[in-house]
């Protein structure tokens, strides 16, 4: 197997607030290999965007970050991005690291032509690039996104939402970063445009070996466009592995519930997860999912589950799999720890979102 282009180890990003630290990302470990797309899914507020920004060193000043983010692309040279001076990271952003935001209109300057956006992006990292060269590279990137040459001089508002998003992608790609984070790139778009963009992203990794972390609410997109998937809940990755495998055989109860509650064309009955994600200032003890888990055991409420590496390569952080893998671990849950936890039934709608 090729060496990962990005390795994240025990990354934590906590936000300081008046009520105490928000543990938005709390000890996350994953790898992304060259040309691989990793899907990041989970309910709102579980830390997906924070993780995406944390990896790129884009966290706000009120956040504390620790852990390791090792970038092995040529420019990254195996350095740990956490703790790197802001200037150094800024230099990597663009040629090595890219970010695609959800709202293209807020990122494109309405007073600048598309051509000027490209000139600015390219000049920032390649000083003294001749104008001809800039134009050639920009047009090549735009062509890849299906934007005709004749629109090179247009302003952002002259494009439709889908085109703007494709321009954003072209802008992120013109510098050929080795690693891109796309934070819900299609959430505001229609199904058809969304499908087009997903197709473009899928072609990308084939053609350029670009690695991608794709944050999304839409499980369908992950199933179609991602090689691997990481499911986040309350600041943790609770399950990660091959996308097909995870979707076909979800291991972690949260993944299972999430998949069941998604409305798809084959939905015949509505299912939902009771309750809502916890407040990350005071996350629940033990397994953070236990208040909502349909198969929670008493021990789950007190002891944190280990990560279980399954034979399929899927990693799931749940006592169910842990005990299956090694029955001796059941003792850690204490006496009666395997009894079902009844609390789930008592969640009233009041706590629901």
């Amino acid at each position: 197997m090729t060496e990962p282009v990005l390795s994240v180890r025990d990354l934590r990003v906590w936000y300081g607030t008046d009520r105490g630290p928000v543990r938005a990302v709390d000890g996350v470990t994953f790898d992304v290999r060259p040309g691989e797309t990793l899907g990041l899914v989970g309910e709102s507020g579980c830390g997906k965007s924070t993780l995406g920004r944390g990896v790129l060193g884009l966290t706000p000043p009120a956040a504390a970050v620790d852990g390791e983010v090792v970038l092995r692309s040529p420019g990254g040279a195996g350095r740990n991005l956490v703790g790197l001076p802001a200037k150094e990271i800024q230099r990597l952003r663009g040629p090595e690291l890219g970010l695609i935001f959800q709202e293209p209109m807020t990122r494109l300057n309405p007073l600048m032509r598309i051509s000027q956006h490209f000139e600015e992006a390219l000049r920032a990292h390649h000083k003294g690039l001749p104008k001809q060269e800039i134009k050639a590279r920009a047009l090549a990137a735009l062509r890849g996104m299906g934007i005709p040459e004749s629109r090179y001089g247009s302003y952002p508002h002259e494009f439709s939402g889908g085109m703007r998003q494709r321009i954003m992608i072209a802008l992120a790609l013109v510098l050929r970063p080795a690693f891109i984070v796309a934070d819900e790139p299609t959430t505001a778009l229609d199904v058809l445009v969304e499908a087009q963009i997903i197709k473009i992203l899928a072609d990308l990794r084939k053609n350029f070996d670009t690695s991608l972390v794709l944050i999304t609410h839409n499980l369908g997109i992950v199933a179609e466009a991602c090689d691997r998937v990481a499911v986040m809940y309350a600041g943790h990755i609770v399950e990660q592995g091959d996308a097909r495998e995870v979707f076909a055989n979800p291991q972690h109860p949260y993944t299972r519930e999430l998949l069941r509650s998604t409305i798809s064309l084959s939905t015949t009955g509505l299912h939902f997860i009771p309750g809502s994600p916890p407040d990350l200032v005071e996350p629940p003890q033990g397994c953070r999912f236990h208040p909502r888990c349909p198969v929670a055991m008493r021990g789950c409420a007190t002891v944190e589950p280990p990560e279980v590496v399954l034979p399929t390569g899927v990693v799931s952080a749940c006592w169910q799999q842990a005990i299956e893998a090694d029955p001796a671990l059941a003792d850690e849950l204490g006496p009666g720890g395997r009894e079902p936890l009844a609390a789930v039934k008592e969640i009233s709608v009041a706590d629901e979102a």
Partner: protein
Amino acid sequence: MATTTLPTGPIEPDASAKGTRFGGLRRITAAIREARGVPRFMLWAGAVISALFVITAVFAPLIAPYSFDTYRSGGHNFPKQGSPDGDHWFGTTVQSLDVLSRTVYGARTALEVMLLAVVFSLILGVLLGLVAGYFGGWLDRILVLVMDALFAFPYLLLAIVAGFVFSGIAGGGVVTAALSITVVYIPQYFRVVRASALSAREATFVEAARAMGAKPSVVIRKYLFGNVIQSVPVITTMNAADGIGTLAGLGFLGLGIQPTQAAEWGYDLDRAIDDANAGMWWTSLYPGLAMVIAILGFTLLGEGLNDVLNPTMRRRRISKVLLPAHTRRRTVTAPALPDVPEGEAVK
């Protein structure tokens, strides 16, 4: 995009009961409580000075040794242009009036005029602004035209013209002065309220109110009002500061309140000009100082409120986080047993 925020702790019943009527005000008070740093200082300093001014004004008869038009006491006339001494701490004027009493009573006049002017302009400005912003159309155009014309006029000149007009009708009292100043301030409220009403009119909740079958008057009262008065307190305090100055300006030009009706700083200053040339500093210093302090107080209050309430000026306080040591999760590797029916656990 969906953001599911968790309810942040229980809401005290009393807080919500208070907020029922004035939901908009609840947000203001919360913002004030959260203020920090320079805005907080301005807010408090402004509030204290303004409070002193108000107290002085309200209790003027108790604080001032004499009435504003007293020129004799105990059978003796006060000295003419007497310098400050034990009897008359701030000295006396050319008309034998006690400067301290005039200054204290001046605060009272200023407060009366200010309150009346602010209340008049607030009511009229907000009402017209709401109506123009919500209904739009020709009514809006006409109002905007009139208000812009008033706004473009030099404000002192406007007050003078209004003063002439009103004094013909109502004489040279406190109400006339207040009305002249009102005319100056209505456009300010109108503009701000109309602008926020215009944007609030497009808000979904106003649309929803219309879809419920609410009459325009109900929509304005229940849905627009609470959301457009946000910026009004700031203008009010700024106008209060400004109003004191304008009143004094009118008085200085002899167009304000007649000296027989009330003590007024601007009039006193006008009278004191000759004194100052003759080396008598007390007749001008004390009213002038009082005026500056009062204006300063309300300006600080207004600026402080502006900083606190204006979301673009507000910055979140950053609290530093110290990360405790991290204990990594254990990893367990499941044995690849061919006889474990993987599907069992799944279904």
